[in-house]
């Protein structure tokens, strides 16, 4: 079982090569850090002053994540998950996948694992991008000092983990819908609809119950809001709960599908 899962993962990973999703991960990972990098080399005087700040890295990462959190990250996940899952529908390959010697559960988890791996890849690239946006200007321009604050690995890890968990319900729901519908616009439309609904009710006292709201909520957490006071518990638990629920439903629906290609 483990071996066939690994083989399935390798096969799924190969399919994602040069796909739109793989480009989305790379471009999405570096897009915002690149804007900050350009901003820092254009406004060098301001950059020189920032580099001396004892909270330089937190400020830079916080600004990058804030731009990402509200719309770009959820939207990117909606697009990437739907695109990668729909590879089979788009290429008319479900029938070939389902006549290979793999159990249905291996196929299900193999695909999901690749999506998760791409999400991790995105987070790694985004954090590398933030680091480069902070460090590179000093290496390229002598007038800019290298940030004096030691790099806060713990802060980057914690923030990244919080956003990763916030992303999981979106991945799970998009995976569920994309496995069921041949038409790409169904998961895309549903994803955008759920995201807009979540953004609309962010200030409602029960807004945290909407599964696409956790990344936008993290935006407010980064700005200093105490969301635990609002939800009564850490939002991560809601995100994890929804993720488990959606994945379980998705698995059952996928296994029970009468027509497999």
């Amino acid at each position, binding site marked *: 079982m483990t071996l066939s899962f690994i083989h399935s993962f390798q096969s799924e990973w190969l399919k994602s090569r040069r796909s739109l999703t793989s480009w989305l991960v790379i471009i999405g990972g570096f897009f915002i850090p690149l804007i900050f990098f350009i901003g820092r080399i254009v406004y060098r005087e301001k950059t020189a002053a920032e580099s001396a700040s004892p909270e330089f890295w937190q400020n830079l990462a916080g600004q990058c994540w804030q731009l990402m959190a509200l719309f770009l990250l959820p939207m990117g996940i909606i697009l990437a998950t739907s695109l990668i899952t729909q590879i089979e529908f*788009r290429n008319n390959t479900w029938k070939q996948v389902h006549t290979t*010697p793999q159990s249905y559960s291996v196929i299900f988890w193999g695909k999901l694992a690749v999506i998760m791996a791409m999400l991790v890849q995105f987070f790694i690239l985004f954090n590398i991008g933030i680091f480069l946006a902070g460090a590179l200007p000093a290496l390229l321009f002598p007038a800019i000092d290298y940030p004096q604050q030691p790099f806060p690995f713990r802060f980057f890890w914690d923030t990244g983990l919080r956003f990763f968990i916030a992303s999981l319900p979106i991945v799970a729901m998009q995976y569920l819908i994309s496995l069921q519908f041949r038409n790409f616009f169904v998961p895309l439309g549903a994803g955008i609809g759920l995201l807009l609904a979540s953004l609309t009710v962010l200030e409602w006292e029960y807004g945290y119950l909407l599964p696409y709201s956790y990344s936008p909520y993290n935006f407010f957490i980064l700005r200093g809001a105490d969301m635990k006071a609002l939800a009564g518990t850490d939002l991560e638990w809601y995100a994890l709960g929804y993720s488990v629920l959606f994945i379980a439903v998705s698995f059952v629906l996928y296994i029970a599908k009468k027509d497999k290609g």
Partner: protein
Amino acid sequence: MHIIEATGLSYRFSRNDRPVLDNIQLQVKEGSIYGFLGPNGAGKTTTLRLILGLLRKQEGDISIFGEAFGRRRVALLRRIGTLIESPSVYGHLTATENLAVWQKVFQCPRSRIAEVLKIVGLQDTGSKKARQFSLGMKQRLGIAAALLHQPDLLVLDEPTNGLDPAGIVEMRELLKKLNKEQGITILISSHLLPEIEKLATDVGIIHRGQMLFQGTLEALMQRQRQASRIVMETGDNPAALQLLAGLHIPARMEDNGISLAAAEKSVLADINRQLVLQGIDVWRIAAVEEDLESVFMNLTNTN
């Protein structure tokens, strides 16, 4: 031994629809090339999808290599190569990358990729993406994927779709070679009788979800020979019919004369002599040979 044995297969897409398959019995012998023949929409693809587990079985039993498919799905699929309907290729990948996707799953040697690409004549496609391939090239890539893990059984649904005449001949020769040299059993569906006639050892004919014929190609040809008849035109057809009845030769009146079953030349000569002796002018005695196509058309039109 039967490599595939499907008994009592019935299927309907929704409860209120008429069945698209009705009590199908299908037996594919080991080492045979089984031509699964029928007009478009007859139920060929639905049958193949049921056999391969792509559709959930409603009624009937399916066993492959002597084992119930449902219970041993993964192990059985390891021995089967498939190409169902239109080719399954990842458009953003090259031919080699497409096959590498399946090679990872089947865990066959990587060298097989180059081998099967050569077999299907796609070894020179290089970095060209599969989306730029013609339909025929995609079809050949689909065949390559089916052959990659050296299966014991090939299930091919209309594999010559999109191929040019030369490609069709090449494909036919390739399948014959695989069958003969490697002993691969092949189940191939088609709506084209001449294609099956030149390739298959066994034939199943399906129409409107019902199996009309199943047997060897030889048995089908026998039926063709039996369907051949003699047509006779005389100056007085009713009198001639009466004379034939007297000779205990079954015959019937048709628009263009009298029709009777094919017979030996000596019998025909005798009939001719008797007619002339009775003063009936004989204008024409002709053999009407039914080809396989007519047999196929007769089978599918009468049902």
